[in-house]
């Protein structure tokens, strides 16, 4: 009896210890986020009088308005969405097409092509920055959003081809043969059979690529110059310069910039985590 109760007690202590440790860790991780939320709600006078690191004394929502309209966050967010949404759709569509062809048909050099496409995505972007900026000048799209959309699609597609290829290869060949027997062409096989079966991977990759493209800084500042064209991540750096030491506005801007990806994460958490693991080559 007493051995039993010791075991119970030990188990309870272990549970308490676990929650204490994990809870403290989570709190430590969430603290910077809480801090930026609180800062975004403080008034400038409060920060000026008591210091950035003090307890808040007065709250206001006007920082968000200031970052949103005067700071140009509204326009930047629209730019971001104009870039991100077509990029996600087109990249995944192109990648699904290529993955379908490479995984379901005996194309010549298909493995070499697959690795070539993946290899392009693994290149350090630095080697591409100068030529890409010159290329977009030559094509007359420098400092326009289509240039950013183009480079994001071109650079991203290889990775998704590789992941979707792995996924589509696992679909049994008999399903496709049955469709061929019924007279289905490649388009019907792709659209009616393979694509619906790939939906989980596509969902995972959409959540993932949305955040990647939305959060990008480097490509944006490489092919864009005007402040009015910048997507939100690059605009945040502009905000930092515009509102030096007005931490309430900068914090509000950061919250605005992070909100869309946090929303995507909270809505599609499972897809998101699945996506990260899909990408890991074993």
């Amino acid at each position, binding site marked *: 009896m007493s051995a039993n109760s010791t075991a119970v007690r030990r188990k309870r202590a272990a549970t308490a210890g*676990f929650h204490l440790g*994990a809870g403290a*860790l*989570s*709190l430590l*991780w969430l603290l*910077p986020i809480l*801090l*930026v939320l609180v*800062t975004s709600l403080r008034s400038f006078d409060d920060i000026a009088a008591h*210091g*950035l*690191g003090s307890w808040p004394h007065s709250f206001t929502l006007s920082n968000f308005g200031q970052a949103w309209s005067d700071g140009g966050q509204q326009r930047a967010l629209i730019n971001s969405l104009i870039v991100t949404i077509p990029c996600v759709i087109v990249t995944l569509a*192109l*990648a699904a*097409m290529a993955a379908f062809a490479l995984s379901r048909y005996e194309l010549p050099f298909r*493995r070499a092509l*697959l690795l*070539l496409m*993946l290899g*392009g995505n*693994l*290149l*350090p972007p*630095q*080697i*591409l920055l*100068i*030529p*890409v900026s010159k*290329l977009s000048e030559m094509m007359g799209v420098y400092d326009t959003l289509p240039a950013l959309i*183009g480079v994001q*699609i*071109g650079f991203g*597609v290889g990775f998704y*081809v590789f992941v979707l290829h*792995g996924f589509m290869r696992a679909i049994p060949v008999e399903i496709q043969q049955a469709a061929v*027997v019924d*007279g289905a062409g*490649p*388009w019907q096989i*792709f659209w009616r059979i393979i694509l619906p079966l790939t939906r989980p991977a596509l969902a995972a990759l959409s959540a993932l690529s949305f*955040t990647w493209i939305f959060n990008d*800084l480097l490509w944006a500042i490489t092919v864009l110059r005007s402040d009015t064209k910048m997507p939100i*991540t690059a605009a*945040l*750096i502009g905000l930092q310069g515009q509102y030096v030491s007005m*931490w309430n506005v*900068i914090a509000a801007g*950061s919250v605005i*910039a*992070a909100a869309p*990806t*946090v929303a995507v*994460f909270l809505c599609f*958490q499972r897809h998101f985590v699945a996506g*990260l*693991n899909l990408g*890991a*080559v074993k």
Partner: protein
Amino acid sequence: MAVLTAPDRKSPARTPAVGKRARGSRRTPPLVLAFVLVPLLAESVWVFWPALQGFYLALTKWDGVSTPQFIGLDNFREMASDDIFRSAAGHTVLWLVVFGGLSAVLGLAAALLLQQERRGVGFYRAALFLPVVFSLVATALVWQAIYQPDGVLNRVLDAVGLGSLQHAWLADQDTALYAVIVPALWRQIGYVMVLYLAGLKGIDPALYEAAKVDGASAWQRFRHVTLPQLRSVNAVVLSVIIIDSLRSFDVVWSLTRGGPYHSSELLSTYMYSTAFQSLRLGYGSALAVVIFVLAFGVICSYLVRAFREAD
């Protein structure tokens, strides 16, 4: 009846179709060919062609306006005597070791802690993972506020009696690089944790049972069961970390621009400022080639693994 007759009607047509497939598998439907060629074209325009140009530009002197002037390996010779390059390379290696090492170790530790399916564990995992979805720029701004002279970090140090440690963390040459690594770590650990969580999930529980029966301690079980079983995940984490480290740019750029006095300069930031601020496009390309060479081994090993998987 229709179901029965339909295959009958089609069966004569099926035989040649199958025969064709077996005979000439090289004859692919044009649509399928287009499916590969269109994405390949997109990647060629924006990646392969620019990459080739990048390698060529590394052998030139170019201001971006006049025609590039071929100078052979002079850019690389210049690097040998460029102090900023040398310190940037050193910082990049330090970044790789500190940022890479700590994110791997702490990510694995977090995964080990949070691998058990208990009540509330989903919340803890989400908390650690949340920063992964922030852009590095937003992350940087959050931490920049923390690091300010009147910011929270200095206040806390003061409150716990360590006031003498108060610092202008980002403005001090001795602390700037480390102050930049911390936010990057804050964001990376959750990502590594997710990779390890998936790896730990894949380990057969019977192995632990067997080790327990054999009287293995918790440490022995970790050392002789968990670690060997995680070998493939470790390889993934290693490549992810090295590729991410060499790409690290956003967080440094938004916190310090590589300063003060290049004390937090990485090869990636030095390359960017050389190319787009000093407009020395040839030398900038040469710096990019150095980054490529450093990443090359990892890219190759990643591709080799991918090749095996595609088999």
